[in-house]
C-alpha cells in the first residue's frame, strides 16, 4: 500500500477516533483520574463498549470472512511490569497515549508536555532496549482464550460480548453516566457547599 493511502486512511480513522473520545469526555483528566479513584466509571463504559463492539466485529470478520487476527504474544513479566508502569503514568497524566492527543486537540495546554514526555519515554525505551529485554527475557506465544478453551473464536467472542453487555447494563443502573459527567462535562462534581451561616450571622467551621 502506498504511504499516502496509509496516511489518509490513518487520518480518517484518527479523526473519527478523536471525535468519539471528545464526545464521550473520556479524554478528560477528571474522568480518567475519576476512574482510577473509582469515583467515576465512564472510562470503563467507553472502554468496554469499544471492546464489545470489537468482539462482535471480529467474530464476523474472522468467523465468517476468515480475516486473520493480530494477536500480541503473551509475555508474562513484560505485560505485568509494563502494564503497572503504564497505569501509573496514566493516573499521573490523566491520559493514555491516545487521549493525550485528544486533550491536545480539545485545548488542554499541559497535554503538550505529556506528549513531549511520551516521545522522550519512547526514545529512552528504544535506547535501553537491549538491557531491558535482558532483564525481562521472554519468548511469547500468541495465546488467546478461545484457543485455551478449544472453541472457535467467534463463539467465545460473542459469549464474552454478551456477558460484558449484561455487566454494563448493571453498572449503568448503579451509576448512570449522566450523574458522573460533571456540570462542565469534565467529570468533576461540584465542591461541597460553602460553610453554612448560623442564625446570629457567624459562620460554622468549615468541614475538613
Amino acid at each position, binding site marked *: 500500500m502506498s504511504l499516502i493511502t496509509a496516511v489518509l486512511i490513518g487520518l480518517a480513522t484518527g479523526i*473519527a477516533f478523536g471525535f468519539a473520545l471528545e464526545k464521550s469526555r473520556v479524554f478528560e483528566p477528571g474522568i480518567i483520574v475519576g476512574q482510577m479513584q473509582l469515583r467515576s466509571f465512564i472510562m470503563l463504559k467507553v472502554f468496554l463498549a469499544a471492546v464489545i463492539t470489537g468482539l462482535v466485529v471480529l467474530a464476523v470478520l474472522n468467523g465468517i470472512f476468515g480475516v486473520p487476527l493480530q494477536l500480541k504474544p503473551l509475555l508474562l513479566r513484560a505485560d505485568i511490569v509494563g502494564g503497572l508502569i503504564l497505569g501509573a503514568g496514566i493516573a*499521573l497524566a490523566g491520559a493514555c497515549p491516545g487521549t493525550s492527543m485528544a486533550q491536545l486537540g480539545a*485545548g488542554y495546554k499541559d497535554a503538550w508536555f505529556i506528549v513531549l*514526555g511520551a516521545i522522550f519515554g519512547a526514545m529512552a525505551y528504544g535506547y535501553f532496549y537491549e538491557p531491558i529485554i535482558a532483564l525481562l527475557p521472554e519468548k511469547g506465544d500468541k495465546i488467546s482464550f478461545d484457543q485455551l478453551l478449544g472453541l472457535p473464536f467467534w463463539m467465545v467472542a460473542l459469549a464474552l460480548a454478551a456477558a460484558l453487555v449484561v455487566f454494563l447494563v448493571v453498572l449503568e443502573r448503579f451509576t448512570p453516566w449522566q450523574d458522573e459527567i460533571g456540570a462542565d462535562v469534565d467529570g*468533576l462534581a461540584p465542591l461541597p457547599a460553602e460553610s453554612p451561616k448560623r442564625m446570629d450571622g457567624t459562620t460554622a467551621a468549615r468541614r475538613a
Partner: protein
Amino acid sequence: MCLMHRKAWPPYLAGIAIGLLQIPTFLLMNTALGASSSFVTVAAHIAAFFDPGIATMKYFASHMYGAKNWWQVAVVVGIAIGAFISMRLSGARRQTISPVWERAMGIRSLGARAPIAFAAGFIMLFGARIAGGCTSGHGISGMAQLSVGSTLAVAAMFAGGILTAMLMKRA
C-alpha cells in the same frame, strides 16, 4: 440538538463508534487499532536527527519506515484533529489545565503542572513499550481478540493506575 453539536455523548455510543473503526483497520491495514507505537516512530525520527546510528538499532529501525508505522502516526495526529473539530462543534472549550489537578494535587497553574505532565508522559510511554501496547493496542484491540497477554496487561494497567491514584487527593 444535532448529535454532532452535543457536548457529551453516552459512553456507549462513543465506544461503539470506536469499536467499529476496527473494520477499516483490519480490512485495509491488516492490523488492529493502536497508539503507542506511533510515539516510537516519531521519537526515532527525532533521534535520527542527532544520532545517525539510530537506523542500525533494531528496535528503532523496525518502527521508522513503511505504511503501517506512518498509518499509526496519522491516526494519532487525527485524534487531535478529531477532538478539536468535536470541541468546536459543541463549544466545550477547555481551560489551560483541568480543574481536577487542583483537587488531586493542589496544582493550579500550567507552570506547576508541566513538569509532572512531562514525567507522567515519559512513564506512560515507557511502560507502554515494555508491555508492547497501551489502552488501545492491548485494551480495545487485544481484549477484543481474546488475547491472554493483553488481558493481563490491561489488568496490570488498572492496578497501576488505581494504586497511583490512591496517592493523590480524592478529586
